[in-house]
């Protein structure tokens, strides 16, 4: 045994030494790097033809250059530039200059003069454009140097008259990015004349080339983004561009108009061809609305999107967007919406449509009809009917945003949103359902609207149905018929799609608690009670019956008269459901029963503050740990952990914090325990057995630290540092334990890579370790172990600062439920698909981290990566995984259970920031995707399966 162990450690040890050598080798490589410029020089001199030179440059561009050697490289490139006749090589050099000047740690002001110099002599338009791009890169790199900026703006202005659109484009881009913001700065800018950048850019709004016009508008938008206040005069210019022939110009112009309207919402503009005046924001709104029926769908999407963010617009204009005057044969007609409303208000609901039901009524005055409204008329009507679903989605989003800010508009747009529930594209349907949910606190659904909404419950898409359930959770229904209708439709849904059970119950829970008075008159009917006769007791396992009870019980919570209508078995069922489905059935004040929980609920709220205090106190208590003897420290830790755990159970809001700190304390406890072991005092050969405990502790601490680092959302950098520190200690412990049996320390030193990440922590393990670093590096392994051991013992307990918001990631597998006794039979060698449905809470980036693990009875484990599309995001911090897992195995004689659980994969190297040089070189993608380890974070579910042997 001992010999075996020894061998193992040796193996690891030797391997590690090799790694170290590699590291040294890379360091050597680094030293050779500054000669890169020289190599380039030689290459370029060698190049016989422009094509050759271009090849060398392309090769050169693939590798990054260090900040200190950039200048040398730049000089060589410039030198070659002067000599080069071929424009394509010059172009590449110019682009390289731009790329190099972006290198972090390099100040590009030294090459600016040269760049401007070569710019003056350049003839090729393409190279000119590229050089201007380079100047832009330089200028953006030096945002605080006013003189340089002024100079660059000057250069840009000179080249604005170039005949090539590319050059003009770049000039405008430069002006937009660097144009000065304040005029006062100009005095110290070496007498360079100030230029009104806005005016210059504005002049190019009427350039002959549409690309330049677009660039001019973009430059103007750029100025705005940089904080320069645009003049109001631009508004008129931009309005003219709305009728441009080119879509990219129109699209940019719409943006510009939006920007101006946000800057000067209240200023007054005249309406052409009349004496009236309106607010600018209203005028802009009308203009953007008009663009919703533009010929190009790109512009339409743009316009529809921007409409949503114009909240200052007056309600009169806003409501016009939903208005469309119908007529037939010059006679006024009512829309279907108006008719539906009328039918509803007249008390008669849902009459069959008759021939001529929509017959036009009054005559329309021909003069008064305006076919092309200048204002906002019908913009959303058009947008929602658009051919492209992108436009429709944008329109729905805009509706949502506007409706959230204006309740009266919300009421009006309801009809249109309901209509969108029948869109041909699922995405649009889903989006409109979500929108409706967001504005649901502003609206009450009419019965006919509810009818349309409920019709969608039969949709075969699960997403749509669940979105609709969520919507029903928070809708207001106006009549008891509405509630009845909703219940009937939901039950229909339940029979058609039994998998929706949980979602439907939840939906009914909210429906009941929101409308107690409407449910009340329905109770006898729903429970099918009869005044004289006893009716048969319904089946308690029927999901539909449970659904009805959930609705009633939730309504009864705020309606004390309701329980009187219950029959005996209802009370029994209540007791049963209260126990089995406690999250759906509230506590009721029933006659003849004591109510326990209702007294508790208010007190919990008032206790919230004390519990926070309690948490703080118990954590503070731990700080005194340092001054206690080991025994006392252990006890203190033990009962603090116990307290925290209990607190987490009681207070769901504090569960994250409590768990997090408890885990940390547990680590500390383990560490103390391990160090208390007697083994340290015993001679090496004797403690082999006992060392198991210490190494197990080290291992456990490592696991716990990984959990702390990756399973909690909201962990900040300062916590990560502490966690790393703890892990380092665990590693040191591990090393000591192993080293006592063998001799070696290389492993530890190689694992100290993140030491540099850790800031200087007073009195900590790292602190001491760093002090001892020189000694560690030189001394022999045995000595190192000794040093480590003492440092470990002396190191102080670090206080863990608590983050503001911390949540533990958790997952629940809803399906498979693991209750079935019928094994899933399939032919061995083939696959069977298992539907997995799980909810994830507080998982960051679930697409990359969450995996499904299947454990077979033979110990074989399989890890499945779900597709990114399998994750849905129903709410903040919540995710839903609906995927299929394929199982396969060789034939078994008996059915057996496999375990399915969810894992959270992590990769600690992903936290290390990456190299900034990204554009030239390729990034190795495997660094990001590799999995270092996994943490199980859901309860395993057992699935009964039976692979049958294949029949021949």
């Amino acid at each position, binding site marked *: 045994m001992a010999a075996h162990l020894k061998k193992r450690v040796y193996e690891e040890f030797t391997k590690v030494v090799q790694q170290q050598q590699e590291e040294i080798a890379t360091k050597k490589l680094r030293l050779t790097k500054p000669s890169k410029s020289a190599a380039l020089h030689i290459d370029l001199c060698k190049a016989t033809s422009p094509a050759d030179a271009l090849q060398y440059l392309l090769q050169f561009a693939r590798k990054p250059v260090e900040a200190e050697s950039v200048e040398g490289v730049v000089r060589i490139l410039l030198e070659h530039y002067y000599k080069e006749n071929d424009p394509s090589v010059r172009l590449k050099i110019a682009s390289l200059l731009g790329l190099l000047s972006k290198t972090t740690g390099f100040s590009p002001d030294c090459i600016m003069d040269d760049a401007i110099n070569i710019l003056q002599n350049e003839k090729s338009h393409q190279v000119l454009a590229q050089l201007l791009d380079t100047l832009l890169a330089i200028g953006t790199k030096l945002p605080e140097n006013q003189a340089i900026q002024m100079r660059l703006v000057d250069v840009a202005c000179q080249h604005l*008259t170039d*005949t090539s659109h590319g050059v003009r484009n770049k000039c405008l881009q430069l002006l937009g990015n660097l144009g000065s913001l304040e005029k006062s700065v100009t005095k110290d800018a070496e007498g360079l004349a100030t230029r009104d950048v806005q005016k210059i850019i504005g002049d190019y709004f*009427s*350039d*002959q080339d549409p690309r330049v016009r677009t660039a001019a508008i973009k430059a103007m938008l750029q100025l705005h983004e940089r904080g320069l206040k645009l003049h109001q005069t631009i508004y008129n210019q931009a309005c003219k561009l709305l009728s441009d*022939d080119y879509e990219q110009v129109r699209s940019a112009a719409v943006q510009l108009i939006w920007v101006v309207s946000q800057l000067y919402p209240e200023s007054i503009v005249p309406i052409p061809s009349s004496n009236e005046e309106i607010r600018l924001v209203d005028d802009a709104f009308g203009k953007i609305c008009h663009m919703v*029926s533009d*010929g190009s769908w790109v512009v339409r999407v743009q316009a529809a999107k921007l409409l949503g963010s114009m909240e200052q617009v007056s309600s009169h204009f806003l409501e016009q967007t939903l208005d*469309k*005057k*119908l*007529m*037939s*044969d*010059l006679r006024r*007609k009512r*829309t*279907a*919406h108006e008719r539906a409303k009328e039918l509803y208000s007249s008390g008669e609901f849902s009459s*069959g*449509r*008759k*021939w*001529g039901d929509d017959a036009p009524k009054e005559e329309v005055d*021909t003069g008064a*009809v*305006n*076919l*092309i409204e200048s204002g906002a008329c019908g913009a959303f*009507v058009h947008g*929602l*009917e*658009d*051919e*492209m*679903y992108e436009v429709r989605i944008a329109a729905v989003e805009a509706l949502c945003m506007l409706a959230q800010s204006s309740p009266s508009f919300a009421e009006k747009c309801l009809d249109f949103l309901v*209509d*969108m529930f*029948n*869109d*041909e*594209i699922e995405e649009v349907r889903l989006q409109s359902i979500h929108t409706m949910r967001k504005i649901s606190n502003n609206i009450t659904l009419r019965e006919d609207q509810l009818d*349309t909404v409920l*019709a969608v419950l*039969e*949709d*075969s*898409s699960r997403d749509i149905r669940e979105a609709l359930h969520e919507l029903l959770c928070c809708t207001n229904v106006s009549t008891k018929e509405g509630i009845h209708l909703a219940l009937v439709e939901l039950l229909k849904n339940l029979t*058609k799609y039994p998998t929706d059970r949980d979602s439907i119950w939840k939906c009914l829970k909210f429906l009941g608690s929101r409308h107690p008075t409407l449910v009340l008159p329905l109770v006898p009917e729903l429970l099918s009670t009869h005044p004289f006769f006893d009716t048969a007791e319904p089946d308690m396992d029927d999901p539909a019956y449970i659904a009805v009870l959930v609705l009633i019980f939730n309504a009864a919570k705020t309606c004390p008269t309701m329980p009187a209508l219950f029959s005996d078995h209802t009370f029994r069922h209540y007791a049963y459901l209260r126990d089995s489905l406690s999250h759906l059935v509230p506590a009721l004040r029933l006659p003849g029963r004591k109510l326990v929980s209702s007294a508790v609920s208010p007190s919990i709220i008032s206790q919230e503050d004390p519990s926070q205090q309690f948490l703080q106190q118990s954590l503070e208590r731990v700080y005194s740990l340092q001054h206690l003897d080991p025994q006392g420290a252990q006890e203190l830790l033990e009962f603090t952990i116990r307290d925290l755990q209990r607190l987490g159970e009681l207070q769901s809001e504090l569960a994250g914090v409590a768990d997090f700190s408890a885990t940390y304390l547990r680590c500390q406890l383990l560490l103390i325990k391990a160090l208390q072991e007697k083994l340290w005092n015993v001679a090496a050969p004797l403690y082999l057995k006992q060392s198991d405990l210490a190494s197990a502790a080290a291992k456990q601490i490592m696991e716990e630290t990984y959990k702390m680092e990756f399973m909690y959302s909201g962990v900040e950098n300062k916590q990560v540092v502490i966690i790393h520190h703890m892990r380092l200690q665990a590693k040191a412990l591990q090393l000591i334990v192993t080293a006592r049996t063998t001799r070696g320390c290389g492993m530890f030193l190689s694992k100290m890579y993140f030491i540099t990440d850790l800031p200087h922590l007073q009195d900590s393990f790292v602190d001491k370790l760093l002090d001892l670093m020189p000694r560690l590096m030189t001394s022999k392994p045995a000595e190192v172990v000794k040093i480590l051991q003492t440092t470990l013992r002396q190191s102080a307990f670090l206080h863990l600062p608590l983050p503001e918001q911390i949540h533990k990631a958790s997952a629940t597998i809803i399906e498979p439920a693991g209750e079935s006794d019928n094994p899933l039979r399939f032919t061995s060698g083939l696959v069977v698909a298992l539907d997995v449905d799980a909810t994830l809470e507080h998982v960051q980036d679930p697409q990359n981290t969450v995996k499904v693990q299947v454990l077979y009875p033979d110990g074989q484990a399989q890890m499945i990566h779900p597709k990114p599309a399998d994750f849905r995001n129903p709410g903040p911090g919540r995710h839903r995984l609906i995927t299929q897992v394929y199982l396969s195995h060789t034939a078994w004689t008996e059915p057996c259970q496999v375990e399915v659980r969810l894992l959270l994969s992590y990769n600690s190297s992903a936290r290390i920031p990456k190299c900034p040089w990204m554009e030239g070189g390729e990034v190795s993608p495997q660094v990001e995707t590799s999995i270092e380890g996994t943490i199980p974070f859901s309860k395993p579910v057992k699935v009964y399966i039976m692979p049958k042997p294949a029949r021949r």
Partner: protein
Amino acid sequence: MYGTGFGCLRWLAEGGAGQDVGRSCILVSIAGKNVMLDCGMHMGFNDDRRFPDFSYITQNGRLTDFLDCVIISHFHLDHCGALPYFSEMVGYDGPIYMTHPTQAICPILLEDYRKIAVDKKGEANFFTSQMIKDCMKKVVAVHLHQTVQVDDELEIKAYYAGHVLGAAMFQIKVGSESVVYTGDYNMTPDRHLGAAWIDKCRPNLLITESTYATTIRDSKRCRERDFLKKVHETVEHGGKVLIPVFALGRAQELCILLETFWERMNLKVPIYFSTGLTEKANHYYKLFIPWTNQKIRKTFVQRNMFEFKHIKAFDRAFADNPGPMVVFATPGMLHAGQSLQIFRKWAGNEKNMVIMPGYCVQGTVGHKILSGQRKLEMEGRQVLEVKMQVEYMSFSAHADAKGIMQLVGQAEPENVLLVHGEAKKMEFLKQKIEQELRVSCYMPANGETVTLPTSLSIPVGISLGLLKREMAQGLLPEAKKPRLLHGTLIMKDSNFRLVSSEQALKELGLAEHQLRFTCRVHLHDTRKEQETALRVYSHLKSILKEHCVQHLPDGSVTVESILIQAAAPSEDPGTKVLLVSWTYQDEELGSFLTSLLKKGLPQAPS
């Protein structure tokens, strides 16, 4: 300069029940080219009035000589029904242009129509199947946005029009003059087709249909939703739904609508479609996916929407099957055929429902039940009691007034011509177009000719050298601003070129003549000639700062190429004569100088 202008003729049905059944046929002459747009027939007549009167086009002489081409916008019979008659019986051998789907579906409809007319009604003097085939051989198919060169000058281009599969709008262009003909079009997308679209082509004339000139329609969604709800409810209660349709166009839209709804709602009730014509047509719908709307185009890789999963072929025996079902049957007005048979079987049950998706002509069963009649007299004195529910849903695929305005706004034409509508309604639209878009609008009656003058722009080729030289002199040419340019216009073989004068001389083999103007300016100056010249020099130098003013050693002064010499006339020593001489090219500067010198020199500082 004025172009040759347009002659626009059109024929339209007089009276008749619906505007849809008129016959469309428009003749356009544009810059000397004659183009016939559509060749429709009138469904309401059974005699000669059914086809347009082609003798109107040329009194004598062959049609082929007179017409340069014929363009068919889409496959509806009121737009293409007279085509075999026109090409085979009247005699036309020139090219006929239509889109690919129209080319595919058009012969099926023509053949079907021929069968009804000849085989069922027994008409003589009608075109034969062979004639349809021969006629279709003359067809040239075009793609969307493809510019087809009919001959050296005439070119046509098709734009998407919605309406039915393969419907197109056509731009006809000769030189700088152009006409856009819309045919029938739809500005709102439906379940299987997209919306009509045209770029800002700024034609001289836009010929647009105006079927719904006075209507603004409600959104399509409500109608669709109502339709689906009705069908769904009836089927759920075990009833049967009959939807009488015409074989092509709306039928496919409704099929898609029901198919997707069935799919969405996971319904199992069978849907049937009466076979025959439709199957063939559906086949073409499957093939012409690029002509359909976004949804179908995007999803056809996974599944072609026209490969219906739930819709099966109908068999006569199915009508008696128990249980719910939905049946599409032809014809659409319930006047004969399968739809009427099924109607008679199902009319007695109040659970059942019939949905009329379109317009019904007076006298048909469809019209009767829509107007509320509950007892129908059938042939053989039978009385049929209608207990089933009767619904009306209008699904029309024409642009409404707003849509027409929108299209006019998109294309930005100089003139608009309204066709294919009722005079009274067109009057309203005409007024609106003139008022709101400020575009002049015409609405000629049948057989009336409209002539429009066009301002013709003549393209002139300019040599690059000249352009660059002129560009170098001034700043950048500003967009949309006229600018002065010196050059020589050469008109040769009916094309125009602008070249520099040197090149023109060289090309034409002419010697250059110089034209110089000389002028004498009398000055009161007592000093010597040299001094006068010097004074003139300094004066000019101070005024003409941008020009090169030189004092030559022989005593003369030059400004650019203008020579000024001072001479003393013998008779009067007190006046000096300035000889100013300039070439024709410097006329501007020369005349400026003389007027300047005539004002006299400033008093010299003594």
